[in-house]
């Protein structure tokens, strides 16, 4: 009896209840310290871009690129948008912006429409050789674009659309096809096959099942594809240079021409405003979409 109570009180004296945790342990300081330093490296360019674009040129020349402006001015933004020059043309970056818009919108719509149908056909309507075409497509996504550039130029010229908006739209559709088809194929393969069978017993055909069954069930993946394509096509440079004429250059090409032009005095504040303007669309898409963006880029790494 006495023994039992002894051991019991001894046990009571030991650790009891929740294990204490230190928030300021050396491990945590190291961990968060490293992460914060890394984040500063990532944030620095954005900070510099914004600050420079809000300064007047005298302040850019005299001041420190990391310090905030003493006098805020939106003049560089206005100038970048309306007056910045590419060669002799001084109507600002707005032209490139609108070009990018009219390139991006049809390219995104067409590429997603075609790729989603591809993915659906590959999963539910396999035909002889369908997997071979898909394999070629996936291989094609790793092959350097350079090797296919000139044949495409010839094909588009033959079709009479080389240098036009539609030529570029088709190029974006072609090169977006591998990754998007993979994306949709993987998503559709997770939809139970029995659902497709049930719809066939119910008399729905190829398009009926696509529009009535698959599409309504797949909205998230369409959003992912949308994010992927809007940022991808907006950021394109090479196809814009190769497949369009100067009056149809997308924003990235025009931006590069403005900033890297050798003529005239360099206006760094205007340049940074222009750069920021060009990056704004993908940045807005990125910050609004959050985790869906991660899902989109990770799709490229998911095996088929």
């Amino acid at each position, binding site marked *: 009896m006495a023994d039992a109570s002894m051991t019991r009180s001894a046990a009571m004296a030991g650790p009891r209840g929740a294990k204490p945790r230190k928030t300021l342990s050396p491990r945590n300081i190291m961990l968060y310290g490293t992460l914060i330093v890394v984040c500063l490296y990532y944030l620095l360019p954005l900070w510099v871009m914004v600050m420079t674009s809000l300064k007047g040129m005298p302040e850019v020349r005299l001041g420190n690129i990391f310090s905030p402006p003493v006098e805020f001015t939106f003049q560089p933004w206005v100038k970048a948008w309306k007056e910045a020059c590419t060669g002799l043309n001084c109507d600002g970056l707005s032209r490139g912006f609108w070009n990018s818009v009219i390139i991006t919108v049809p390219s995104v719509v067409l590429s997603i429409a075609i790729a989603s149908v591809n993915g659906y056909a590959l999963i539910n309507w396999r035909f002889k050789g369908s997997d071979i075409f898909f394999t070629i497509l996936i291989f094609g996504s790793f092959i*350097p674009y350079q090797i296919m550039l000139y044949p495409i130029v010839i094909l588009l010229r033959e079709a009479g659309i080389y240098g036009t908006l539609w030529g570029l739209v088709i190029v974006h559709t072609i090169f977006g096809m591998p990754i998007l088809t993979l994306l949709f194929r993987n998503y559709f393969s997770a939809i139970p096959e029995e659902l497709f069978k049930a719809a066939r017993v119910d008399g729905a055909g190829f398009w009926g099942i696509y529009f009535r069954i698959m599409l309504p069930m797949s909205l998230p993946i369409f959003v992912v594809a949308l994010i992927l394509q809007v940022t991808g096509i907006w950021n394109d440079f090479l196809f814009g240079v190769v497949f369009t004429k100067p009056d149809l250059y997308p924003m990235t090409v025009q931006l590069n021409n403005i900033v890297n032009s050798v003529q005239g005095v360099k206006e760094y504040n205007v340049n940074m405003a222009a750069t920021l303007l060009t990056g704004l669309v993908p940045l807005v898409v990125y910050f609004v979409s959050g985790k869906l963006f991660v899902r989109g880029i990770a799709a490229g790494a998911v095996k088929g």
Partner: protein
Amino acid sequence: MAEARGRARWTRNISAKIAAIPMIATALVVFLGGTIWTVVYSFTNSKLLPKANFVGFDQYERLWATSRWTISIQNLMFYGVMSLVFTVVMGFILAVLMDQKIRHEDTFRTIMLYPFALSFIVTGLVWQWILNPQFGIQGVVRDWGWESFTFDPLNNPQTVLYGLLIAGLWQGTGFVMCLMLAGLRGIDEDIWKAARVDGIPTWKTYVVVIIPMMRAVFITTLVIVASGIIRLYDLVVAMTSGGPGGNASQVPAMYVYDYMFQAQNLGQGFAASTMMLLSVLIVLIPWAYLEFGGKKHG
């Protein structure tokens, strides 16, 4: 009977076959046909327009005798190796840090990944500005009183590739971190529990258990990053236009573009792009063999 059967088979799923035409055309005409066409015409002396006048390996001999090309290859190899090692190592370390059940994980990830949403042109121009010798980092440090401080990678042929690396890593490491983090999250929780019960220290668990388990993620990441590096073009155009000193930061993709669309020497452009294809195949074929070859037997 036999005839009726044949027709029925052919018209079966006709909508599906029509719907697949864009995919079939892209795969066969553009990807396969276009690649073969370029390879074939790389053996011609096409100048302004493609001509089927075959000259054997002349274009390749010229290519490898051109210093601009050999420098491009050297540059790409240096940049490629450095970039691969740094993005993968840093990406993995960052992913491990992010995997410590930290607070504000979403915020950290958002910050590390946003550069990936930006184009190489924007990336290149921002870093060009930050590395500007007069107003950028060098200028700021000199203003602080350290007059002899030199940090001007973009205007020195010896260091220009490091300048490109700083920008390239800034843009791409977040992406690799996300892939690695997804890989880490895909590992069974029970592995960690078992390691903890066995008393294996965390770092050792990563090295001995987790990294080998993530083999597939590493390989896939390497292939994706490597095939992106071979295409490297926009970043160089924006940051250095291939300079300084003419071709200190030239890369193969630039060589191809210039010969195809500027110098009107198509044969050279085709030969150079065929070499690019070859280098990709060297990366791709072993990977495809590992990834898909084994699957059929398994």
